[in-house]
Each structure stands twice: as structure tokens, then as C-alpha cells.
């Protein structure tokens, strides 16, 4: 039954992609196909990788409310951009080759992210809840520190930072898309290969250890995957809405109610892609590109999340 639901999700994704590619198509197909195709590929890639990263994160922390972005992971991206603009000025920043900036972002984000988690974990002495709480506080700290630097920047240069700190799919560089795919696909594949181990990790640290799956080592491996997935998606399009991962994982749990990652991972990846492609279609065709996609996701997702919470309470 759950497998059939995965098929339905796949069908929904194909449908959403078809609508996105063909709806209100004016102009020659030789232009539209690669133009929209590239954006579509970015949407699917980002949707899938952020959703899988969230599910991974929720499994190793044993909760359904935390996501990497709540831990301040996206903040890392904004901080890097802010510091770059602050140090080299907006003209030089905008002049940076896209490839260099991408590599810089992905490297710094996963490097700093992993360093951060390692540091936090050492302080937390193996207690995941402590790690998570420290992480949230650290996210607030990063946000404040970034805000401090942003206030010291010239207002004109600040606007440059503001623009890049929202996820945009309107201008996706083809080369970066290929690079991000090359980083993301192996990470997704590695997550898929770990599905049985993830099931065991979801049972909690003691039970996992009893079944021969030492949690600390697996947690490190999963953290590497999470950092890679989020970093490559963020470096490609900018930070997604903080709500996104939360909504998609909650939706995936509703659509495919199971703890088995063999179902949950593809279900989350498909749901994430459907939400993003659908959201972008709505944005481009109905709202006329009036807002960044993250705003649409926040608005629709926030309401949906509230609905899910209330529905669960009544049940």
C-alpha cells in the first residue's frame, strides 16, 4: 500500500513538472525547453536534497520538529555572504566568478557546519538533546553576529546581501547545476544505502547499540551527508524557507505513515520536489514572480503545518 502511494507521489511530480514546462508557454520551444528545464532540474534537486537532509536530521536527533535550518545551518550561508561583502565590497563580490563563489560556499558551509557540529558534539558529551539545544542557541548567536556585521555595511552594499539571502530559481547557472547534481546525487545514494541503519538509529541510542549499530559513528556519517546536501542546495539557489524541511517531512509522514526509511526517504524526496515545483509554478504563472519562492512556501506551508498539528490533536 505504501509503495502504491510512492507511485502516486511520482505521478504527482511528473504532472507538476509537465504543468511547469508547458503552462502558458509563449515563444519558441527551442528557447523554452532548456530555459525552463534548467530551472525545473534545480527545483527537483533542491527539493529532494533538503527534504532528505531533514529526514536524516530528524532520525539521528530522534525528533520531528528540528531541522538543519532551525539549527542555524542556513544562517551559515548568510553569514558567509555578509562577511564576503563586508571584506571585499559589493562590487568585487558581484564580480566574483560564479564557479568560485559556488565552490567557496559549498566548501565553507560544509566545512564550518561539520566543524560546528563536531565542536557542539564534544561539548554535549554524546547527549543529542544537549547538542540540539546548544545548536539552537548557536543559531541565534550566528544570526545576531551576522546582523551586527550587516549593520556596519554600507546600506547599498547591504541590499546586495539581502538579494542573495533568499532562495531564487529564476537565474540558475547551468554549470553550477551540473556541479550541484554531481555533489547531491552521490549523497542521496549514500543516504539510500544507509536506509536499514537509519531505521535502527531511529530506535534510539541504547537500542541501536544493542543491535550492533554504534550510534556515534553512524551519526557522524549522517551529519556529513546532511552538511553536503544542505550546503550544495543552498550554494545553488540560496537559503530556502526555514519551514520547508519541516513541512515536507511532516507531509511525508502523513502520506506514507511509516518509520521505514526505504519508504520515507523517497517519499520525502518526492514530496519536496512536488512542493517546490508546484510552488514555483504558482509563483511564476499566477503571482507573476511577485515574491521569492520561500515566501510562498512559508505562507502555504505554515497554514498546512498548523492544520496538521490541529488535526493530530483531534485524532
Amino acid at each position: 500500500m505504501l509503495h502504491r502511494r510512492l507511485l502516486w507521489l511520482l505521478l504527482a511530480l511528473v504532472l507538476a513538472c509537465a504543468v511547469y514546462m508547458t503552462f502558458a508557454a509563449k515563444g519558441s520551444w527551442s528557447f523554452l525547453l532548456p530555459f525552463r528545464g534548467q530551472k525545473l532540474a534545480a527545483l527537483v534537486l533542491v527539493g529532494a536534497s533538503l527534504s532528505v537532509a531533514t529526514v536524516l536530521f530528524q532520525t539521528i536527533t530522534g525528533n520531528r520538529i528540528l531541522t538543519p535550518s532551525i539549527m542555524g545551518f542556513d544562517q551559515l550561508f548568510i553569514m558567509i555572504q555578509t562577511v564576503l561583502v563586508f571584506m571585499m565590497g559589493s562590487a568585487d563580490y558581484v564580480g566574483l566568478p560564479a564557479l568560485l563563489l559556488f565552490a567557496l560556499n559549498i566548501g565553507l558551509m560544509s566545512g564550518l557546519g561539520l566543524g560546528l557540529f563536531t565542536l557542539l558534539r564534544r561539548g554535549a558529551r554524546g547527549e543529542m538533546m544537549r547538542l540540539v539545544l546548544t545548536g539552537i542557541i548557536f543559531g541565534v548567536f550566528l544570526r545576531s553576529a551576522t546582523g551586527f556585521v550587516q549593520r556596519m555595511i554600507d546600506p547599498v552594499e547591504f541590499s546586495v546581501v539581502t538579494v542573495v539571502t533568499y532562495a531564487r530559481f529564476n537565474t540558475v547557472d547551468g554549470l553550477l547545476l551540473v556541479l550541484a547534481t554531481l555533489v547531491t546525487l552521490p549523497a542521496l545514494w549514500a543516504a539510500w544505502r544507509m536506509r536499514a541503519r537509519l531505521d535502527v538509529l531511529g530506535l534510539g541510542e541504547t537500542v541501536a547499540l544493542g543491535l550492533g549499530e554504534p550510534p556515534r559513528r553512524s551519526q557522524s556519517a549522517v551529519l556529513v551527508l546532511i552538511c553536503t546536501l544542505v550546503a550544495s542546495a543552498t550554494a545553488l539557489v540560496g537559503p530556502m524557507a526555514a519551514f520547508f524541511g519541516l513541512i515536507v517531512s511532516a507531509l511525508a509522514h502523513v502520506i506514507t505513515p511509516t518509520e521505514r526509511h526505504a519508504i520515507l526517504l523517497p517519499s520525502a524526496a518526492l514530496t519536496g520536489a512536488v512542493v517546490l515545483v508546484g510552488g514555483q509554478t504558482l509563483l511564476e504563472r499566477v503571482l507573476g514572480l511577485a515574491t521569492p519562492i520561500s515566501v510562498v512556501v512559508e505562507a502555504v506551508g505554515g497554514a498546512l503545518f498548523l492544520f496538521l498539528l490541529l488535526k493530530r490533536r483531534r485524532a
Partner: protein
Amino acid sequence: MIRVDQVSHQIGGAPILHDISLEIPKGGITALIGPNGAGKSTLLSLMARLQVLRQGEIHIDDMQIGKVSDRVLARHLAIMAQSTHVSARLRVEELVAFGRYPWHRGRPGPEDHALVEAAIARFGLGPMRARFLDEISGGQRQRAFVAMAFAQDTDYLLLDEPLNNLDIAGARSLMRLLRQMADEDGKTVVIVLHDINYAARFADRIVALHEGRVAAQGPAAEVVTDALLRDVFGTDAEVSVIDGQPVVLV
């Protein structure tokens, strides 16, 4: 056989175990008893490698804790920790099936399914196999965890105070199931118990700990005495012998 050699342990600078040496023979039920803070749970979690062993050695048969890989150990030693809480929303049958994980590591075969079915039948979980763990009673949940440990098909089973929060019927039926596993399947069960009477009634051997040292060990009839209660537990309850079994009159 579980061999504990000169094990000491500190938590946050406070000594918990002092130079403990102990042999737990293969087969039967061995109960660890002692007052609060005597170190019985610590000793068990060191055997179960839930805490890192720093001083001394523990061997399970010829496997040394800390040296042997977790994967290998998981096929010889099953553990049931105190207040096992699973945050994942699982059905009973799914939990029991996880017991086979050390053997198939994610690719269950027909033999694994058969053993899971056997465990479900043996522990009377058939009627509630499709229910979620948070929908059944505490006693039924503990039974599901023991069934999972049974499906793990190990020679050794370590349990940390499994009777907590169970009523008398639940506690007795759990102890009877453990007794069965020791008698019929030849498993070696090591169990931390709070209630001396349960230990005396169901265990073959009792090891009493006091302030991180072994205070007494042997069959219940030899260990559970007025003197033990006075010296180790610091209470003047009397022990009476009923049908050859010591019973603490609380």
C-alpha cells in the same frame, strides 16, 4: 561465561565501582541486587558496553568488551536498558523484527521472518502485533522488547530493572518468560532487580552489590539473609523461609 576482572568505574570523579571481579557462569538467571547507588546498573551497562569501560576487563565467553566489534557482539549479547523509550512510532511486529537486524543487516530472509513469527507467537503478542507501541500497556511493551531480544537469538540477555512500573501480574509473567528462556533455550540471563523477593523467587544466583563492591553472591537461600538486609540494605526487615525459599517480610 561472563568474566569481570578488576573493574573500577568513576562517574564525574565519584567512584561507583571498586575493583570488582566476578564470574557469571553460562546458563540460568543471575540477579544483581543492592541498594540504590550500589553500582548494579553501572556494572550491567559496562557489560553491555553502554558505558565505556576504563579500568579492568570484561569478557563475554572469549570476546573482550571494548575490543570486539559491536556487530559481532550484537549476535551474542542482547540488552534491554532501563526505561526503554522508542521515539519512533512502531508497531509491535516491527519492533520484534528489529531483533533480527544483527544477523541480516537490512536484508531479512525467510529464516528471519520465521524467527520473528516464532518470537511473536511465543510471547503471546499475536493479538496485538499490529498495534503501536504507545497504544499498549507497559507490561505488554516490556514483553515486546523481550520478544525482540529473543528474536535476536543471542546466548546472553542483559536486562536493567525490567520490572519498573509493572504491576504484579505483569512482573510475574515477565519473570516467568525469562525463566522459560533460561530453562528451555539455555540462555544466560543477567538482570538488575530492585525487589529482592523477585530475585529470590526467580533467579538461580544472586550477586549483591554494596557501595561498588560485591557484598555476597550465591544461591538465593545463602545470600538473602537477615544479615544481608541489615549490612547491605541497611534495614531491619526479617527474612522468613517458605517452601525452602527466603522471603523478605516487608
